[in-house]
């Protein structure tokens, strides 16, 4: 049976389709709203704000600005040391031996373990590597390590009296050591399998290859950046 549509039904259908078309168009406007909004702000800004909108006298202004930016870049480059320096990442346990912007050598290292060692009598030590800019203050060949109390406590050994012969260790620091101040050293190690892991007491440990290069390239006063 064919049921004929009444005029009111067809009008309703038409109005519904109008509403949906309108909503679809509104959605399209709405999704592109932010870009329209940005244009509105750009166009209307001079009318609403004081007269500090962007204007320029001539193309020369651009040229002056470009030259100024180049000057700023040049001034910024001047902060990079010309002599070799060392960048140490404690996050990756990696070193970058650099000269200017160029990397001379990169390789693994070991940095502070962030262990807090607690002993009897409320004594405690934190084994962290300091961060910031440092300078090479001393360069040592065949360094001897004076072992502090924590070195014995950490190994479960009895702490000997000060200046006892067992406090002096001539093997632990490797062939070279470079001091960056406050008792922190860049040195070698006997435990090469742990290089690349954060296991030290705050010093920077290097494998022989890296240690030789660092010792050779870094002068007294050379910068060491640790982050």
């Amino acid at each position: 049976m064919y049921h004929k549509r009444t005029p009111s039904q067809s009008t309703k259908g038409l109005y519904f389709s109008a509403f949906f078309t309108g909503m679809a168009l509104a959605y399209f406007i709405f999704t592109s709203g932010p870009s329209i909004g940005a244009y509105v702000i750009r166009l209307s800004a001079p009318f609403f704000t004081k007269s500090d909108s962007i204007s320029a006298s001539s193309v020369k202004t651009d040229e002056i600005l470009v030259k100024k930016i180049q000057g700023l870049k040049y001034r910024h480059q001047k902060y990079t040391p010309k002599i070799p320096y060392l960048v140490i990442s404690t996050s990756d346990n990696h070193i970058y031996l650099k000269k200017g912007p160029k990397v001379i050598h990169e390789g693994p290292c070991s940095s502070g373990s962030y262990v807090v060692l607690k002993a009897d009598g409320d004594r405690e030590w934190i084994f962290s590597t300091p961060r910031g800019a440092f300078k090479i203050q001393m360069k040592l060949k065949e360094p001897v390590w004076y072992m502090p109390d924590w070195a014995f406590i950490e190994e479960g050994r009895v702490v000997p009296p000060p200046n006892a012969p067992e406090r002096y260790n001539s093997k632990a620091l490797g062939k070279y050591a470079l001091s960056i101040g406050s008792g922190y050293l860049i040195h070698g190690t006997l435990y090469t399998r742990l290089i690349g892991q954060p296991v030290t007491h705050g010093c920077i440990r290097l494998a022989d290859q890296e240690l030789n290069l660092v010792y050779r390239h870094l002068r007294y006063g050379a910068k060491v950046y640790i982050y």
Partner: protein
Amino acid sequence: MKNRISRKNIYSQDAAPKTQIHGFFAIMLIPVLAAFLWVTLTPLYWLLQEDYSYPESPSESNRMAHSSKAKTLQLSPADQKLYKNLLIENAYWENKLLLCKDDSVSLSIDLVDSLINLEIQGVMLRKCKIKSYEINWSLKYFREHPKFLSWLGLPFILQNDSASITKVPVKVIHAPKNPIDAAQLLAKILPKDDPFIEFELEFNRNLRFHFQQGDSLSVPDPAETPIYYSDILSGNKFESLASSVKEYYPSRNYQINIVLSREDARAIYRALPSAAKLALRL
């Protein structure tokens, strides 16, 4: 008489479709006009609320000097954009020079070149490639605002941070009783693998960053996702629409989401000191 009646009927039949067409357009135009007014009037309302009081930076004074020299000639929109980009770059490098005077690690974020640099005293410590980034609409609007350059003019200062990893991975160990106990300590000292790395940095002047490891941002943009009727019926899309309405309304929260490699994300978060400074180019 017959002719008159028939003519009247014809008129009424002609008038009905016309009314329907008028009604059709009227109904269609209501949501269109509403959307149009929303997207044009909200930015204007936001623009009128001009209560910024940013300190005047060297770049700002420089820009004002340029403006004061300006004669009647106005630049074309394309040149104006180029000129503004140059002013932003100028502000970025001036800020970087200011950061050189600091002894602590600072951050330079260059969204134009997709680079993040960790620096100390002007020396680059780490160069990180940004894999992808997203700027919220408030910041996009604000980029067009005349006060944008003063906002960008001085380095930003870190005020707060939160992360899925610890800033300092401290392990507390009690002194072993004997060398045998000590030998077992090494396993405790070695670091465990960090979870998924993401962190937020909140700077002054309402600038906020969300960093996460990965290849791309995991959250899709609701505006770019098409609407399906099944979604509407299930109510999923209404939520995303509501959030996008909120997103489009200009606010003073300027957020940038950045995706980096896992190593870069970890290095940046752990290297930044409290009150770290930032130079931004976008």
